[in-house]
């Protein structure tokens, strides 16, 4: 039984804090009664050792890149160099305040300014903002700029085009910005269906959001024509940088005709995923969109770095201060360490690793889209399903072999999808082990199917009852046991089964 932090009790005097110096009552008597907290917060009481032991034990229940191969498609679970953690932790970067005088934070501003410049060069864009906190936040930034741009041009635009293979954040962001979402079909070859796209183009199109390579891991060969067609109706083309790990030194979104680009520093540029963030989602734009970037921009005059004084057409601010500096500085260090040759080697090895797995695994898995892939590919467990085992079961069984599951049931357009992204940092030896493991599981499906159907067996818990979790939600511990832990109203059942709730995006 997994003990909650609230369920253990030991001596806690918070002795890491200095003494008050005067009686508690004396200070409390200065606080006007109307502002005083009436009931003490129900925090736990634990000694330092018990806290350390609790969270250490929790950590040991996690799979992580440091310990496990993690071929989670679309999430780019590459190795996170440890040097970058220590750089981000340096006092000179972690112990500085966003409202210090510019003269006292020239080092930090230099990092931000140079980072903007690096990202422009890598993506072929003209200017970058580092403010967005994550990919979806970058999308919000981008779509708000799309809106501001069209408003400025006095164009009435109401729709955003999004391929049916896209991540959920794309339509969610478009809707958040007040746009109607129009889906574009994928053709049999796994590419954006150009005819379908063209049939949906008219003056109401604000922009097309897409990624290249697409979520099937395929390079969109028609990208130049796609961009041209959207531009012809006065629309903008937005690049979701989820798959940028395929393009470093290979080609640039800016040269393909994209007007706005967001990057996920926590994917391509080695910021650790931190069990779900923080990431960073910088946004790059072409010249005509620069006036709409969030404020403040960071400029360089002579050898001084400064914040831009005012930007009247800016969309405003998406968060307080300037961005996830602690994440940005990791990626800055990463780009400096790798350099242009190292960045190129990232995509070369990511693409090579993915193609190697695709070639080897196509021996016994169905691979719906032939040809070479970029940094990831999608296979289908259809053949295995015919033998009674689903992609979900295979994913769970992989855990028993110490491998994190791939992304499954995404993209939605592939049946029993398994999306595999090995990343560049894995060795051929690791990939060969993975192939052997999948082969062994494939054999189990025929010989001892229950072992797969009932997997995982070696994780801290076996398959989790997600239906009960959703129907009778228990979302917190209550220190005051007189109140029920579950909400008193019925919570509707999720509209899709738990099988669909698999990793979609980092």
């Amino acid at each position: 039984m997994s003990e909650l932090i609230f369920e253990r009790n030991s001596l806690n005097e918070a002795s890491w804090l200095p003494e008050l110096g005067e009686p508690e009552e004396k200070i409390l008597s200065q606080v006007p009664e109307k502002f005083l907290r009436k009931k003490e917060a129900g925090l736990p009481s634990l000694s330092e050792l018990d806290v350390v032991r609790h969270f250490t034990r929790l950590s040991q229940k996690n799979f992580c890149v440091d310990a496990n191969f993690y071929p989670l498609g679309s999430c780019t679970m590459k190795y996170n160099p440890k040097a970058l953690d220590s750089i981000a932790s340096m006092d000179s970067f972690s112990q500085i305040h966003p409202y210090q005088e510019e003269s006292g934070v020239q080092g930090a501003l230099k990092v931000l300014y140079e980072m903007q410049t690096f990202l422009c060069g890598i993506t072929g864009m003209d200017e970058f903002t580092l403010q967005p906190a994550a990919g979806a936040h970058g999308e919000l930034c981008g779509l708000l700029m799309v809106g501001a741009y069209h408003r400025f041009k006095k164009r009435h635009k109401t729709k955003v085009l999004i391929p049916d293979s896209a991540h959920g954040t794309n339509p969610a962001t478009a809707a958040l910005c007040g746009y109607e979402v129009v889906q574009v079909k994928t053709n049999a070859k796994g590419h954006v269906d150009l005819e379908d796209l063209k049939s949906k183009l008219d003056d109401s199109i604000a922009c097309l959001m897409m990624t290249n390579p697409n979520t099937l891991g395929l390079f969109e060969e028609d990208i130049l024509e796609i961009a041209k067609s959207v531009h012809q109706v006065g629309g903008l083309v937005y690049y979701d940088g989820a798959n940028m790990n395929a393009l470093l030194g290979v080609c640039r979104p800016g040269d393909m005709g994209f007007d706005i680009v967001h990057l996920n520093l926590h994917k391509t540029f080695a910021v650790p995923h931190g069990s779900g963030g923080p990431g960073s989602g910088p946004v790059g734009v072409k010249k005509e969109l620069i006036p709409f970037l969030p404020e403040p921009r960071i400029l360089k005059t002579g050898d001084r770095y400064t914040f831009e004084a005012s930007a009247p057409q800016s969309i405003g601010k998406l968060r307080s201060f300037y961005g996830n500096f602690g994440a940005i500085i990791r990626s800055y260090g990463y780009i400096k360490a790798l350099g242009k040759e190292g960045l190129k080697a990232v995509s070369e090895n990511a693409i090579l690793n993915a193609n190697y797995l695709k070639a080897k695994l196509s021996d016994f898995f169905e691979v719906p889209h032939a040809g070479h892939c970029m940094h990831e590919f999608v296979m289908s467990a259809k053949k295995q399903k015919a033998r009674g085992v689903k992609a979900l079961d295979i994913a769970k069984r992989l855990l028993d072999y110490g491998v994190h599951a791939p992304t499954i049931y995404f993209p939605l357009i592939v049946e029993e999808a398994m999306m595999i992204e090995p990343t560049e940092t894995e060795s051929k030896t690791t990939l060969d082990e993975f192939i052997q493991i999948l082969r062994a599981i494939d054999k189990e499906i025929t010989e001892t199917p229950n072992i797969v159907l009932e997997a995982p067996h070696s994780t801290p818990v076996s398959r989790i009852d997600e239906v009960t979790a959703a129907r009778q939600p228990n979302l917190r511990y209550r220190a005051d046991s007189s109140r029920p832990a579950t909400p008193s109203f019925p919570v509707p059942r999720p509209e899709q089964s738990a099988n669909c709730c698999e990793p979609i995006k980092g």
Partner: protein
Amino acid sequence: MQYISNTANDKKEMLHAVGVSSFDELIAKVPKHLQKFEMGVPAGISELELVREMVETGRANHHFHHYASYLGAGNYDHFIPTVVNHLALRGEFITSYTPYQGEASQGTLQSIYEYQSLMCELTAMDYSNASMYDGASSLAEAALLALRSSGRKKILIPDSVHPEYRTVVKTYLSFVGAEIIHVPSKDAGVDMAALEKALDSDVAAVVLQQPNFFGSLEEATEITQKTHAAGALLIACVNPISLGIIQPPGEYGADIAVGEGQPLGNAVAFGGPHFGFFTVKEELLRKIPGRIAGMTVDKAGRRSFVLTLQAREQHIRREKATSNICTNHSLCALKGAIYLSLLGKKGLKKLALINWKNAHDTYKKLLTIKGVKPFSSRSFFNEFAVVIEKDESSLRASLENHKILGPLSLKRFDAHHKNAYLFAVTENRTPADLDRLVKAIEGAK
């Protein structure tokens, strides 16, 4: 420096297995002319050179270990016990993904459940999500939630709310057809008469920052009562450390309580990453943005944790989701959970009392200096504004000479606040710092 594991021979064998003779064949679909460009990134360097260079770059920053910081306004120089980073930076937490794969992520999932519980206990609210980006974006999401759940069109934001937070709300709401109404301040707090006047039947929510941007404590109970009387929701944006002694949002009846989590064990780091907390009353649970972890059982009936109520989220609902948020600030929230666990009941109160005392000692001392005057008559917690009738550049130079960071000039956000400065005083400030601060101000012309 590269972090590649394939040897030259590996690569050769892999290309052969794929059936190509060179890497270029794998990217043959990328038009040739797109492959030619200059990346504008210098050549790579070793780890040794990188660290050396970063140490050098860092020298141009004035940091808290060499300067005493009186800067606040959302981010504060609090002490972070060693245990927080020691635990949070374990590879098992920092290099794992969002816990969608429950069986392989019980550590993260349980810690999120505990984080949610801790935030609810702290704020006296019913439910919490797994975290947002920061305080400002949480406030914006709270405004969106209020608009969504009420069907009304106006959000009332007092001028005493952090100016950057107001800007962020405005940005988020730019295309949703909502109206933001500013409520003027009086004596550095909400002008009650103006609030009453602005409260009509189209108001979805009133925002209350406690303590507010000026550090002042607002009349939270009265504001909440007036808000509810008009049928609107009360969104409280609170400083988590203050809740050790100051009334939590649940006690005055807030419907949504959000805030900046940085003070809870996260380094200031030039403004991020930190985390935003987001808590609600039970009635709003189904409309809350972002991830939520729940407790359930596994097949064998053992206590287990899993992400739940996902039918609100973008990966299921796409354009009908309650928010577009996906990646949040999980690791920062974990730091918050560890920090609150270390503090415990006793520690939280003690910390809040130390902050109160240090700030009030500083305030009293500053007012003894010639040319220093009160800015507001309201009560405050660990942050306050005063008027310093001195030349600003002379004051800045003197503060720099005495190795002091801050205070924040309120003129930065509002030209009307000439000579007004905001001071934050945490447990990290010592009597010796105060002596230096007094000398610095006295020494300015």
